[in-house]
């Protein structure tokens, strides 16, 4: 039971991280029609820039400054490069961001090297946020912080105690993601600039005719989207891994999220992020294969079947392809995604 709860929370936190990334992507796509192929590259930049800033000022300042730096870089890119390509169409824009991904990867490797960096979350976040203790007979109980060793051990062989900690870093990830998204929602719906952005989302020409500086709005949105990615990078880079391959690992997954959720739909992206986050987290934890299932059902398999690769493939081995499998299935049965509007 506690395994389920902890895994669920872990999956949720990963899903929220994915949503931080894919929401920026969706915003940029909805507004400008550009699918930012280099979005994961800004994620990576956030981690690396955050690492460098943190080495001078500590983690908390890096958390604030790195996204600003990354957002500024994104805005500059939009202003000087993307805008120029706008007249050639969406394919050209996608190609430009594709090229940017290459360049960012090489520049990162040039400046910071090719091996993984030791980017650690701050001491205050180390240790568990809370611990779930499952004691036979007493059931499930929760304790804030780490559970002392005596509580997790049982002298009595009949009583089984399982302590499942939930890392504070994961909790922090969820907190930041939720706060960020709430603020973005507030910004979009309650402020004037938010209203202008919402209008420019569907009717950029009309908004321009009304006197608003739409190109500047585009630049701000692109910058904001990449800043979100940078923020996710600081968190993801410190909690998971900071290495040159991090963009290539998470990049395709957020594109899957965006397509599965429905291109251009923020709520769809949220649903898809959480779904994929939970799915992957659970799958990795399961070492079950069809063979073990057969064993549990009491079926005996022939020798040939027992040696078969597919039968013996555990769910944890299959976990990496699950998002892409979901993508293919979604495209077969519901091409517009979970909550997408029909694409023109």
């Amino acid at each position, binding site marked *: 039971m506690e395994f389920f709860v902890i895994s669920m929370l872990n999956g949720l936190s990963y899903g929220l991280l994915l949503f931080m990334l894919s929401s920026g992507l969706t915003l940029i796509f909805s507004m400008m029609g550009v699918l930012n192929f280099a979005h994961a590259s800004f994620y990576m930049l956030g981690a690396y820039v955050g690492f460098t800033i943190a080495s001078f000022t500590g983690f908390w300042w890096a958390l604030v400054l790195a996204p600003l730096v990354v957002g500024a870089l994104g805005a500059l890119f939009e202003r000087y490069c993307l805008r120029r390509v706008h007249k050639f169409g969406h394919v050209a824009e*996608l190609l430009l961001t594709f*090229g940017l991904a*290459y360049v960012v990867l090489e520049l990162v490797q040039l400046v910071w090297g090719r091996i993984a960096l030791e980017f650690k979350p701050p001491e205050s976040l180390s240790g568990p946020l809370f611990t779930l203790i499952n004691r036979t007979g007493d059931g499930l109980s929760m304790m804030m912080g780490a559970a002392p060793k005596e509580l997790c051990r049982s002298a009595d062989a009949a009583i089984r105690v399982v302590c499942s900690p939930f890392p504070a870093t994961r909790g922090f990830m969820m907190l930041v993601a939720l706060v960020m998204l709430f603020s973005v929602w507030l910004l979009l719906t309650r402020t004037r600039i938010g209203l202008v952005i919402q209008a420019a989302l569907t009717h950029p020409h009309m908004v321009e005719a009304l006197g608003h500086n739409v190109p500047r709005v585009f630049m701000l949105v692109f910058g904001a989207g990449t800043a979100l990615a940078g923020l996710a990078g600081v968190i993801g880079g410190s909690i998971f891994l900071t290495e040159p391959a991090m963009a290539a690992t998470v990049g395709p997954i957020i594109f899957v999220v965006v397509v599965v959720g429905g291109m251009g739909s923020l709520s769809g992206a949220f649903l898809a992020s959480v779904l994929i986050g939970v799915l992957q987290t659970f799958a990795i934890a399961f070492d079950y294969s069809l063979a073990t299932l057969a064993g549990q059902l009491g079926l005996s398999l022939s020798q040939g079947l027992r040696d078969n690769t597919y039968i013996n493939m555990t769910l944890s081995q299959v976990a*990496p392809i699950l998002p892409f499998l979901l*993508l293919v299935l979604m495209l077969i049965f519901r091409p517009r995604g979970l909550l997408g509007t029909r*694409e023109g």
Partner: protein
Amino acid sequence: MASSFNRSRWIVWTAFALVMVVAPKVFNSGLGLTVLSQMGIAIIACLSYNILFGQGGMLSFGHAVYTGLGSFLAIHALNAATHGGLPLPVALVPLAGGLAGLGFAVLFGYVTTRKAGTTFAMITLGLGELVFAMSLMVPEFFGGEGGVSGNRMVRDGLWGITFGPQVQVYYLIAIYTFVCVAAMYAFTRTPLGGMLNAVRDNPERVEFVGYDTQRVRYLAFIISGFFAGIAGGLAALNFEIVTAEVVGAARSGGYLLFTFLGGATFFFGPILGAVLMVLALVLFSEFTQAWLLYLGLIFLLMVMFAPGGIASLIMMNVRVAMFGRLRELLLSYLGLAATTALMFAGGTSIIEMVYHLQLNQSEGPVFAYLGMNLDVSKPVHWLLAALLLAVGAGLFEWVRRGFVHHWGLIQAAIEADIRRREAA
């Protein structure tokens, strides 16, 4: 008029064939033969990619799936022929690759071509990742970490051809390249090829002249997959080993990059791109570790300033030459080349120095580059390089403005000329 057009066609194709026949005599070193062989393979691969991209307007991020799966099936077929008694001559093994590419395109293409534009691109990306991830999970087909090896040598070959020496493999590749290039060119001249262009230009209108847009895309996808598989099959023969990276995202990205660089709007553009691709991967990577960075930057500049690729740049100048005005631009071009060289020298020196700092610390602070000895510990060297870059950039901008102005005048004159001829 028609006969002179046909005559120039015959000349071009004959020249193409001649070049392929004569090239190994000129570049007869081991490296030369390897590079030529890889170029043939790359030409087929990039042309097959351009069926989707340049002709159909479909941006695929997963083309390596079809070349790669073609490679895998071909090497399995080769092994089956060598050990298992499959009656397949080595020369026909690439066709097995082609069939694999075709088959997988039929299978995946249905789902892939359901949507267009950006969504299509994402689907190809996802499918590419799916296949790559699966390659690590199914060792029987993909050979696990070490890949799948084969042996192309035939003991008692026809006419003494054993496919042992590289030059024999090269000629096999050359024959396939010629036939495939001709076939893909012919495709552009068929009803399906024509409608594919129409789908690229205006997919909605196509529906209103009686064609199912999705069906056109699907069929083109299958044809592209077929030729991609042949390229993969030739690669399997050439290298005699196939590893999982042949279906990876890096390779797909490479096809996209170089086909675009060569030029997607002209038929011969991808051929240029393919040649460039092999030169870059085999040769440029030896000169500098920063080659991928330079490539990325050139790609970005191309997208921003010359989206038709090198082929379009060539053709624009050919048009100017046909109107007899190319000579006027020669000085400007020289100026652009010289200033670019200055910027290049300065900029790359800085980048090389940074790389040296990063990776080759153990070798001491001095290294050789462009005939100079650069010392990363001396600030003077850094300053000089930066100065070179800045001066070069400034001069470049000055020459560029003059060039653009001059070019604009010439274009206007040419257009007025064309209008006059049309009205006459």
